[in-house]
């Protein structure tokens, strides 16, 4: 049967039962819209967690001493060879930073807190949240800067402010305590209060002087894309032979598993919801076949091949599916657009912060996911038509006469 005739026949048959097929299209559209919108939320959430994790001094890849995780301190530092970055010549890198990060105790006249002291070269920190911080007061001027910047929340807890001094105490490589006073250059406002309470920044040279060690505790690397991680891992692994070279997925396993959950979530939701839908779809298709027993029998009597009968049912099913999915995707886009700039989620702020997500939450509607949903639906449309098509093939001209 020519395709054009096939499409025409199927279209007319669908149109003949507008109400019934309209309900099916509505149900499919509803399901697709729901799945897509849930997916945009999950994708947005996962993306923000991932961004936040990479931003929060992790980067895509980090080089650390194998013992650093269990016993963070300058004792687990290392000195990268001059020119190590040559190894990255072939890798599209967004930037890298060397840092000294050690646990420390910070004291004001009134209060004492435990923090992470991070010595940085501000010029390198475009790759982390530090690069885009809003600082009240002054930012660090360079690796030589002898002042510190602290989180606004921490400053409040320590009852101190910009321009005043704080005493920082930490362990040197020899295990002995070092102590020095630093002036506060500025206080910073991060997306999460937890960050503000933990990180205290100063120039890398300043920390080196305090600890009497030129070593760094980490080299953090930011790439242009996640796809380059394996290449970068291999190149860096060759340079830093005795050290751990780890991707963010290993450093932040919880975040990595959330991203994975979002990937699977799309399929799970799709099959759960479409599963419920298939019953209705098969129902409508079988009915359409049974109503046409006379017509189909007559067509068979006239010499239509069984294959063409199957084709007709499959085409009808696929048409209904396509109409529903296209409507659903369109509706999802329409619902998504007003929120594409972000949703204010301050009501849920504590959870968001705990999960490393900002207050303004940006859902993400990804074209790739829309394509997946579309393709899956076409496959499902064909699968749903198999049983009805088999029923249709079983119709003989004789059946039609008897009715």
């Amino acid at each position, binding site marked *: 049967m020519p395709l054009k005739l096939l499409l025409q026949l199927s279209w007319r048959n669908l149109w003949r039962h507008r109400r019934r097929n309209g309900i*099916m299209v509505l149900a499919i559209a*509803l399901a697709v819209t729901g799945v897509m919108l849930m997916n945009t939320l999950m994708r947005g959430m996962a993306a923000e967690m991932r961004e936040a994790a990479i931003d929060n001094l992790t980067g895509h890849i980090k080089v650390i001493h194998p013992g650093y995780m269990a016993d963070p301190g300058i004792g687990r530092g290392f000195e990268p060879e001059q020119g190590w970055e040559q190894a990255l010549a072939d890798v599209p890198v967004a930037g890298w930073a060397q840092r000294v990060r050690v646990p420390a105790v910070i004291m004001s006249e009134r209060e004492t807190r435990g923090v992470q002291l991070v010595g940085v070269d501000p010029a390198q920190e475009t790759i982390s949240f530090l690069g885009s911080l809003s600082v009240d007061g002054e930012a660090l001027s360079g690796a030589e800067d002898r002042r510190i910047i602290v989180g606004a929340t921490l400053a409040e807890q320590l009852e101190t402010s910009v321009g005043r001094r704080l005493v920082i105490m930490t362990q040197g490589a020899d295990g002995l305590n070092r102590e020095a006073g630093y002036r506060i250059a500025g206080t910073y406002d991060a997306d999460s209060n937890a960050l503000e309470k933990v990180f205290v920044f100063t120039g890398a040279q300043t920390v080196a002087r305090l600890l009497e060690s030129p070593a760094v505790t980490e080299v953090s690397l930011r790439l242009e894309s996640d796809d380059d991680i394996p290449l970068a891992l291999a190149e860096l692994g060759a340079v830093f032979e005795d050290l751990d070279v780890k991707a963010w997925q290993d450093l932040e396993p*919880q975040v990595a598993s959330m991203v994975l959950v979002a990937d699977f979530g799309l399929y799970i939701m799709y099959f*759960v*919801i479409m599963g419920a839908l298939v*019953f*209705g779809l098969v129902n409508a298709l079988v009915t359409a076949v049974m109503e046409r027993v006379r017509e189909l029998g007559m067509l068979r009597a006239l010499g239509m091949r069984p294959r063409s009968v199957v084709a007709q049912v499959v085409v009808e099913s696929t048409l209904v599916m396509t109409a529903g999915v296209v409507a659903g995707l369109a509706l999802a886009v329409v619902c998504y657009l007003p929120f594409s700039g972000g949703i204010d989620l301050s009501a849920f702020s504590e959870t968001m912060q705990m999960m490393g997500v900002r207050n303004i939450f940006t859902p993400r509607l990804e074209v790739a996911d829309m394509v997946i949903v579309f393709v899956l639906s076409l496959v499902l449309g064909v699968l749903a038509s198999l049983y009805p098509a088999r029923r249709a093939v079983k119709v003989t001209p004789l059946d039609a006469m008897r009715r």
Partner: protein
Amino acid sequence: MAAADIAQAPPVAAPAATGSVGIGLHMRVAWRNLWRNRRRTWLTASGIAFSIFLCVVFMSFQLGSYDGMIDTATGMMSGHMQVQHEDYFDDPKVANRIVAGSELLRELEEAPGVVAAAPRVEGFALVSVGERSFGGLVMGVDPVREPEVSALSKQIVEGEYLPRTDSAYVGKALATNLGLKIGDEIFVMGSALEGGVAAALFTVDGLFDTGQVELDRSIMQVPLSAVQSAFDLGDSVHRIVLMAENANDATAIAQGLAPTLPDEARVLDWDKLLPELRQMIQMDAVSGLIIYVLLLAIVTLSVANSFTMTVFERTREFGMLIAIGMRPGGIVAMIVIEALCMWAVGTAIGAAISYSLMIGLGAVGVPIAGLEDMAGQFMMPERIHPEVSFFTLGTAPVVLLVGTLVAGLIPALRVRRLKPVEALREEE
């Protein structure tokens, strides 16, 4: 046939007729009509069963995991409720304390609904061993009462839990970093109440491992009185941690306690102590709700579709019924009863499978394999016991009952607009 037969047929004066029929007949006709198209009925009923199954299973697990999460999260440190100085929650300073600690503790232990109470004082301090030192939170606790309100004492991996007045209970990670072993002495130094130096010497008698390295590195427990005297706190406490029989009662009990407390104290339930827990549950509940609504809406639509087809096919039959004197309302009722029967079949299947599964799993619980990492981070228990309640088992069937009624009623109402003459003319 003898002619007499007809003549003898009983002459009856028709009683005042109403055109409505008893429910029994409706049931019988509806039930049989339902099975006229077996395939359709089975497909639709399977759709109902499928979504009831999914909703019941998801809901039971979801609510079950919340209870587990709440128990695990509150059991870790915070307890079900805490009485604190009114400013302590926002500004945990040594000075923000409840002065008459032991008196309030006694009162609270007697208070209605309170099952256990334990006092705590806390201060940030430098923990040193020889030349090495580390900053952390030193927590003074009552060695007898504390185990009743928190799980930390059970996470012991070596030694004993605070056997003496100068014992320290230290995280394994901190011990490793400081090179500590059982029996070693540690020196604790912080700022006392009036700005002086708080200092005390302890012996490490026990090590704990919670699985969260950061936590293990940043807190240690010592006996209450030692911290009170080191920080010049006298009888003051910072928190009195309370447990109720059930976490869900906390809010009500806290409300009851509030008026009985001294002026500077206030009571916080776990909702307020762990706001992220409640929000996480709410967010999860909302996303679950979306899925349930979608599932049930889609099944309702497929039932509606099924009845649209049924009504369409039986147009002529309905015309005949009207011609012989049945009222459209009676036909509508018949279709709605058919829809109810459809619901009953689907629900019976979906409920039979999901209820037996959930009641079985509810008793033994389901381990969350491979999620131990997540369990620590997101306060998940290691085993989920699906919640078996009227709510989790009953919601989906009841919602679908309403959905099915509407789904049957809407196409059925078309019968009221049915023109008998046109219906009879309709081709079969």
